[in-house]
C-alpha cells in the first residue's frame, strides 16, 4: 500500500467516525432508548457515495491520461456548425416542444424558463459585475406584486403593465443599490440579504396593500388579439391561460433576456462590468465610473427579475409572500454558480439542472434541498468556475488582495 493511499484510507476512516459521532446523537437518542440502525445506514450510505466518487475521480484521471475527451470532441463538432444552423435548430425544438410534450412537461418547461430569466438577470449582478446579491428574489417579488396590484385595481393589461413592472423593479434596484453598493464583497451579500428579508416582512404585514400572508387573488392572465378563422378572420381577444400559451409567453421573455444579456455582456458596459469584477480599484483608475456602472448592473439585473415576476403573477393569478423567501434567492444564485458565472449557456444549463432534475427524481423530493446544499459546496471545491465556465474570467479582485 502506498503512503498516499494509506493517508486516504486514514482520512476515510476518520471521516466515517466523525460522521457517526455527528449523526448518531441526532437519530439514535430517543426517550425510548438508544438506536443504532439509522445512523449506521446513513454512515454506510455516505461512505459508499464517497468511495464511488473517488472511483469516478480515479477513472477520469485515467481517461484524461489516455487522452479520452468525448465532450471536447463533441463541443468541437458542434462549434463547427454554422451558428445560424444550430440556433435555428434549437429555436425550432423550443417552438415544437409544447406540441410533443405532456401537460406536466409543459409545466416543468415553464418553470425552467422562468428561472432562466431570473438566473440571467442575477448573472448581470453576480456574474458580470461581481457583486454578490443574496436578496435578488426581492425584485421578482416587486415585479409580481406590481402586476398583481395594477391588474386588480386598475385592470391594466399585461402588456402595458410589463414595462411598468420592469421600471418598478429597476427603481427598487436603485433604492436598494444606492446605499449598499459602497460596500464590497461579503458585507454587500449580508445587506442585500437583509433587504430581501425586509421586503418579505413588509409584504407579509402590509395588510391593506398586499393582503398579508393570504396574498392577492383575482389577477388577470395576459391576453392577445388573434384572428379567428371561424369568425371571418376577425381579431378576438384570447386569454393566455392554457399551458401552451403560457409556455410561448415565457419563452419570449426568456429569449429576450438571453439576447439582451448576451449583447450587454459584449457591449462597452459589459466590459466595464467585467473590469469592475476583476479589480475595482484598477477599473476606477482606468476611468470606469464604478459607482454608476454598479448601480446600472443592479437595476438592469432587477429589470429581468421584474419581468419574470410579472409573468409569474399572470400565470398563477395569485401571489403571496411565501413565493419570495431567501431559499428562492439561494436557488437562483445556485443556478448561476452551478452553470458558470458570467456564462449564458451555463446558466441555462444550471436552471435546467436545478429545476428539471428534481422533477425526474420526484421520489426523493425530501432530499432535494439536502443534495442541493451539498452540491453547492462540492461544486466550489471541485469546479468553482461552473459547468460551462465563462470565456473571459480572470482572478477575482479579492484573491489578489487577501
Amino acid at each position, binding site marked *: 500500500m502506498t503512503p498516499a493511499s494509506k493517508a486516504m484510507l486514514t482520512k476515510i476512516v476518520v471521516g466515517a467516525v466523525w*460522521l457517526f459521532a455527528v449523526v448518531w446523537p441526532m437519530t439514535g*437518542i430517543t426517550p425510548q432508548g438508544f438506536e443504532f440502525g439509522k445512523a449506521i445506514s446513513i454512515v454506510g450510505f455516505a461512505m459508499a457515495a464517497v468511495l464511488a466518487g473517488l472511483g469516478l475521480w480515479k477513472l477520469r484521471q485515467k481517461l484524461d491520461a489516455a487522452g479520452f475527451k468525448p465532450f471536447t470532441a463533441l463541443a468541437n463538432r458542434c462549434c463547427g456548425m454554422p451558428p445560424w444552423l444550430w440556433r435555428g435548430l434549437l429555436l425550432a425544438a423550443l417552438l415544437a416542444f409544447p406540441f410533443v410534450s405532456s401537460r406536466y412537461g409543459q409545466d416543468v418547461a415553464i418553470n425552467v424558463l422562468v428561472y432562466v430569466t431570473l438566473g440571467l438577470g442575477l448573472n448581470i449582478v453576480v456574474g458580470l459585475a461581481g457583486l454578490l446579491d443574496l436578496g435578488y428574489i426581492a425584485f421578482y417579488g416587486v415585479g409580481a406584486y406590481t402586476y398583481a396590484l395594477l391588474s386588480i385595481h386598475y385592470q391594466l393589461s399585461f402588456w402595458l403593465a410589463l414595462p411598468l413592472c420592469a421600471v418598478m423593479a429597476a427603481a427598487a434596484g436603485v433604492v436598494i443599490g444606492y446605499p449598499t453598493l459602497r460596500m*464590497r*464583497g461579503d458585507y454587500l451579500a449580508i445587506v442585500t440579504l437583509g433587504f430581501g428579508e425586509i421586503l418579505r416582512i413588509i409584504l407579509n404585514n402590509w395588510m391593506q396593500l398586499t393582503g398579508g400572508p393570504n396574498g392577492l387573488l383575482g389577477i388577470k392572465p395576459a391576453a392577445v388579439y388573434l384572428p379567428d378563422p371561424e369568425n371571418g378572420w376577425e381579431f378576438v381577444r384570447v386569454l393566455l391561460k392554457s399551458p401552451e400559451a403560457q409556455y410561448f409567453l415565457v419563452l419570449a421573455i426568456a429569449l429576450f433576456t438571453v439576447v439582451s444579456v448576451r449583447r450587454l455582456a459584449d457591449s462597452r458596459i459589459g466590459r466595464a462590468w467585467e473590469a469592475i469584477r476583476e479589480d475595482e480599484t484598477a477599473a476606477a483608475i482606468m476611468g470606469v465610473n464604478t459607482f454608476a456602472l454598479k448601480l446600472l448592473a443592479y437595476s438592469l439585473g432587477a429589470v429581468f427579475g421584474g419581468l419574470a415576476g410579472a409573468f409569474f403573477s399572470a400565470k398563477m393569478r395569485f401571489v403571496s409572500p411565501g413565493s419570495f423567501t431567501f431559499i428562492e434567492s439561494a436557488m437562483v444564485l445556485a443556478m448561476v454558480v452551478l452553470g458558470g458565472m458570467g456564462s449564458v449557456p451555463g446558466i441555462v444549463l444550471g436552471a435546467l439542472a436545478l429545476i428539471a432534475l428534481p422533477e425526474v427524481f420526484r421520489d426523493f423530493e425530501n432530499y432535494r434541498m439536502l443534495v442541493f*446544499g451539498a452540491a453547492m*459546496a462540492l*461544486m466550489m471545491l471541485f469546479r468553482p468556475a461552473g459547468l460551462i465556465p465563462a470565456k473571459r474570467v480572470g482572478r477575482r479582485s479579492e484573491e489578489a488582495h487577501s
Partner: protein
Amino acid sequence: MDFFLQQLINALTLGGFYALIALGYTMVYGIIQLINFAHGEFFAAGGYMGVILLAWMNSQGYMQTHPWICLTIAFVLAMAYCAILAMGVEKIAYKPLRKASKLSVLLSALGMSIFLQNGLMLTQGVYDKTYPGVFAKGAVQMGGFNITYLQIIALGITGLLLVGLNRLVYKSRLGKAMRATAQDRVMATLVGVSSDRIISLTFAIGAALAAASGILVGLYYGSVRYDMGFVPGIKAFAAAVLGGIGSITGAMLGGLIIGMTEIFSAAYISGEYKDVFAFIILIAVLYFMPTGLLGENINDTRV
C-alpha cells in the same frame, strides 16, 4: 416605568442569546474573513441536541431527581457536539478553499447551511419539538415587574460563558495564539502557532457558544424548529457587525443592542415589524460606520 424595566429584563435576556451567537461570527470573521453562513445551523443543532438529551434524561427519570446536573450535562454534551460538528464542517467545506476566492468560500458556506438545515429537518421532522417543561415556571417579584426563573438561568449562563470566553481569549496561551492568528496568519505561523489548528478551534468555540444559545432559546421559548437558525443567525451577524466585526467585546455589546432594539420596538412601535428594525440598524451601521462601534481600522478589501 415598571413596563420599561420589565422590557429591559426581556431585552437583556434576548440580547444575551444574540451575543452568544454573534461571538462565533465575529471570531471566525476575525480570523479568516468569512461570513460563516452555517453558524445559525450550529445554533439550531445545539437547540435540538438539548431537547434530545433532556427528553432522554426526563424519560429515564434523572430529571426529577437531579435537574441541575442534567441541565449541566445537556449543556456540556450539546456544546461538545456542535464543536465537533463545526470542526468537521470547517475541514470539509472551508479548509480546502483557504486560497480560493472569497465568493467561493461564501457560497460553500451557504451550501453547508442549506445542507445542515435540511439534514436537521430530515432527521428531526418539520414540526416544532417541545422541551420538557421541568424547570419551574415561577418568577421572582421585584417591585412592579417579574424575573422568571428561566430568565435568571439564561442570564446566569450567558454571563458565565461570556466571562469565560473573555478569560480564554485575553488571558490564556490559546487565546494569545488566536489573537496572533487573527492579526497576521503568516506571521503567527512563523513564530510557531499552528494556524490550521487555531482556526479549527475557533470554529469549535464559536459553535459551542452558539449551541449554548440554542439550548437557552429552546428552554426560554419552550420549543425548537429545524429552521430556527436562519433569522437569529442574520440578526446575530448584524450584532457582530454593529459591535465591530472581529471584536469580542463588540459582539457582546452588539448582541445586547440588537436584543434591545427588537424588544423595545416591539413594545413601543410595532410587533410585526420588529425584525425590520434589526436589519435597518445593520444597514445604517454598515453605511455610516463600517467599522462598527468598537471595530479597529479596517482595510479596503474587508469593507
